[in-house]
C-alpha cells in the first residue's frame, strides 16, 4: 500500500474490529462486533472478501486453530493485525483526529 493512501471505510472498520477483539478475532466474532458496536450488518461473503484483500495487502495474518465438534471438526482462522496493519490503523486514527480539530462548534450547532 502506497505511503500516503488509506484503506476504504469498510476495511478500516474490519481492521479496528480485529484489533478490538484481540485473541478473539474469528470471522463470526468480527461480524458480531461490527453489528454490536456500529450497528452495521455485514454479509459474510463481503467480510471474507475484505479479509482476503487485507491479507494480500499484508495488513492481517491468521493462524489456524483446531475446531470443536460443533464445526464438524473444521479448523478455524484467528485473525491478527500485522505490523503494517497496526501502523495503518494508527495512521487512520491520527488522520481522523487531525481532521476533527476545531469542528466542535459546527457539530454542536447541528447545521452546516
Amino acid at each position, binding site marked *: 500500500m502506497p505511503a500516503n493512501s488509506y484503506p476504504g471505510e469498510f476495511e478500516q472498520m474490519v481492521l479496528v474490529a480485529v484489533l478490538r477483539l484481540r485473541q478473539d478475532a474469528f*470471522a463470526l466474532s468480527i461480524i458480531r462486533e461490527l453489528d454490536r458496536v456500529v450497528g452495521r450488518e455485514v454479509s*459474510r461473503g463481503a467480510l471474507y472478501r475484505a479479509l*482476503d484483500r487485507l491479507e494480500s495487502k499484508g495488513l492481517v495474518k491468521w493462524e*489456524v486453530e483446531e475446531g470443536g465438534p*460443533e464445526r464438524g471438526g473444521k*479448523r478455524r*482462522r484467528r485473525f491478527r493485525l500485522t505490523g503494517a496493519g497496526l501502523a495503518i490503523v494508527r495512521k487512520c486514527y491520527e488522520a481522523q483526529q487531525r481532521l476533527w480539530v476545531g469542528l466542535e462548534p459546527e457539530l454542536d450547532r447541528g447545521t452546516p
Partner: protein
Amino acid sequence: MSGRVPEPPRFVDRLLRSVLPSGVRGESILGDAYDEWAVKVRAKGYLRALFWYGLHAVRLSFGYGLGRWFSRGSVHGLTTELKVAARALLRTPSAAVVSMTVIGLGIGLAMFMFAIIYGVFLRGLNVPDAHQILVLSRADATVPGSFDPQWSYADTVDLRRNQRTLNQVSTYRTTQVVVGLAENASRHTAALIAANLWEVLQVPPMAGREFSDDDAQIGVEPVVILAEWFARERFGEPRLALGEVIRIDGAETRVVGVMPPEFRFPENQDLWLPLIEEPVVGLRERGGAFSVLGRSLEDDTSAVRQDVAAVLARWQDEHPETYDGVSVGVETFIESQTGGELSQLFLAMVVAVTFVLVIATANVANLMMTRAATRTVQVATRAALGGGTFRAAFPFLAEALLISLGGAAIGLGVGWAAVDGFDRATSATLTGRPSYIQFEIGIESWLFSAGLAFVCTVLVGLTPVMQLRRLSPAVLMRDDSRGSSSLRVGRVMRSLVVVEVALSCALLVGSGLTARSILALSSYEYPFATEPLLAADIDLAAAKFDAEGERARIYGELSRLGAEHPSIAAGGLTTALPATFAPFSDIALENDGDLLRRDQRQVHTASVGTGFFAALGVEPIDGRLFRRSDEAGQRRVAIVNISLQQSAFDGESAVGRRIRLGSGAEATWVDVVGVVPDLAMAGFATPGTPDGDPSGAYLSLAQEEPEAATFLMSVAGETESATAALRAVLTGIDPDVAPLDVRSFDEVIRRNSWFYRAFGTVFVIFGVAALFIAATGLYGIVSFGVARRRQEIGVRVALGAQPSGVLRLVARQAGGQLALGLCAGLVLAWMVSRVIVNLMFNVDPRDPLVFVSVIGALGAVGVFASLEPAWRALRVDAVEALRAR
C-alpha cells in the same frame, strides 16, 4: 437447550465446497457456516435454520464466489467467459436457437400462467387495504348446486345492526337497469348500495358526492352515481354529468357523482343507485340477493366468525324454518367471488404449465450435457492448467446464462402474446369478467420471469458441471468421443428424456381432449336451425310495469308480432334461450306418495310464450304446444322435454300427468300438455354432471309474467328490418320498452361457450409446445448417442456391420426411453384427464381416439427425431472414425 445439533444438509455443503477456496481458507469458512447453523437450529428450530442455511449458501456463493472471481483478475474474467460462451453458441446457431426457444416457451407459458393466477386471485379488489374487506357469505345446505342465494334484505338490516366486530358493515345488491328511452335505451349493470358502502370501500367519487342517508329515504328525488366511462360517453366530460337528469327504469334520476375510472364495484357496474331503507315487516324470507361486507381492522378473522355465528344462532332459534341449514362464512372479497370449479380449473393450468417448464428445463439441460460430453477435453485442459473443475466447467454456466437470457427474451414475447390473446378471448363484453380480474404483464410478471430465468440458468448450467466435477482431468481427457463409461451423463440424460416424454404425453392427452371438445362444440347439432334466429332482450323490471296485468299485456302484444310482420317468420318470448343454462327448479311428480324431499329432483325450467317453439321450427313429439288461452287465471300448464319424460316418467307419455315445480310457498302444480325435443336447456354445462342434465320443463310465460324475457325471432328477410319492426312495435306499446342487446344466435352460442374455447385453446397451445419441446429432447439424446459412439460405430462398420444393424443400434436408444416415457405418461394422462373434466364438452375423458393419437404422435416424433442422427450414423466413415484419436 443443549444436545447434539443435526448436521446441515449435504447438498448445500456440496454447493458451498464447489465455490469456496481449497485448504484451510475454505475449511474455516465452511466451519463458520456450521457454527452459525448450530446457533440457528437452537434458536429457531430445524426448518427455519434449514431455510436460512440454504439462503446463506446461495448468498455466500454469490458474494464470495463471484466476487472472488472478479477481484482475482485471472486470465478469464466473467466477461471473457461470456464472450467465449457466445462464440461457442454461435458456432452451433441452430442448437442455440432451439435451446432458447425451448426455454422461451417454458418461461413464456409460465409467465402467462402467473399473469392469469395473479389477475384472478392475487390482484384483489382495487380499493385501499383490500385485504381488510370481509364478505359475510351465506351458504345453504338445503340448496343443491353452486347457486346459493345470498341474504334477504331483512337479514342485512339485522346483521348490520347486531354484529359488533367489523368496523362498518354495508350491503349491496346487483341488478340491471334500462337507461334512456326508445332508440336511445340501453341496459346497464347497476348496484343498489347502502349509503355507507363508501365508508367501507374508502374510494371517494372523482366528482360530485357520495350518497347520503337522505338519498336512501322513500319518496325523495332519485339520484345516481355514474362510472367514469359512462359519464364520459354520455356527457363528454365526467364533471358535466353532475346535476343532469337521466331516465333509469322509467324514472327521472339526477346524477350526483362520478366514480374514478378504475372503480366498477362489485364487478362491472356502470352506475350505482341508493338502496332505499325500507322498514322490515312480516316474515323473514329465506335468502335473497343482498351481499354483506365490512372492513375488519384485525388480521384474525376468528372473532368476526364467532360474532356472526352468534347472530345466526339467534336467528335459528327465532325462525327455525327460515334458517334451517343456513351457515355463514367469512371470506375476503376475492375468495367469495372465486371458488370451487374455477380454482380446480386454474389448478389444472398450473399443473400444465409446470409440466411445460420442467420439460423445457430438462431438455435444455440435456442439450447442455450433449455439449459437455463432446467437450470433455476442453474442460480437462482447463482443469489441468489449475483452474479447479468448477472454474473449468464455468463455460457451461456462462452458456446457460446466455441461453436463459435469450430464452427470457423469447419468453417475454410469448408470455405477452399469450396474455394479450387470453385477455381478448375473455373480454368483459364476452364473458362479463369482473373488473377486479385483469390479465396483463405487470411488474410482478417481469420479476417472476426474471426469477425463472435465474432458476433455469442454475439448473441448466449446473447439470453438466456437477457431472464433470466428479471426474478427474485424466479421465476426462481419455473420455472424448470414445463414450467411456466413466462419464455418467448418459444415465441422467436417459432419465430426463423419460420424464420428458411422460410429461408431454400427459399434456398432449389433455390438449387432445380439450381440442376434441372444441370440435364437438363447433359441430354440435342443434335440433333447430340457428341461422335465421335473432334474440333481443325485453326488460320490464321497472316499477312502472308493476301494475296488475301490465306485463301480461305487453308480452301479449309482443306474442302477436310473430304472426303479423312480414320480416319476422315467427317469434316468441322466453326467459332462457336454448343453448344457455336455464335455471333449476325443484320438481315432484303426482302420485309420488307424500312428496318427500328425497323424491324431489331438480330440472331446468324456462317460461316461454306462444310462438317460441314456432320460431325454432320445433313440433311437439306428443300433445300440444302453448296456446293463447294458456294465460293467467287458467289452469297452469307445462311442456316437458323428451329427457324429462324419459327420466321421470320411465318413457311413458307425460301428457296428462301433473308435476309440481318450485318449492315451499312458490311451488305450483301444473298439467303437462306436451312433449318437445331437447333444446339444450343445460347450455354448455358438462354433460354427465348434475348441471349438465338436459331434463327440463317449460311453463307458459303468460301465466308467469316474469320481469324480463328475451324475444326470439326467426327472421324471414333482412335482420335490420326485423329489428326495426320489433323496435317500432315496442315503442308503440310503451317508450320505456326497447329491444336490448339484439344478437344473432351464433353470438348467443359464442357468449355461452367462450369458456371451453378460451381454456381449451390454452391447453392445445401447451400441448403443442410440449410436443415441440419433447421432439428436441429426443433429438438431443439420440444425436448425442451417435456423437458419443462414433468410434464404436466406426469399428462396427469396419468389422462388417450392416446398415440395418447400425440403425437398430441408434433406434434402440430412442425406443427404450420412448416406451418407458409413454407408459408413465399414460398413467399421468389418465390422472390429468380427471382434473380437466370441467373443460370438456361432450368428450369422454378416456376417449380412445385421443390416447391412440397421442401415442402415435409421440412415436412419430421419436422416429423423426432419430432420423437425422441415424442418417449421420450410417455415413460414419470407419477409417476416419478410428483415426480420430
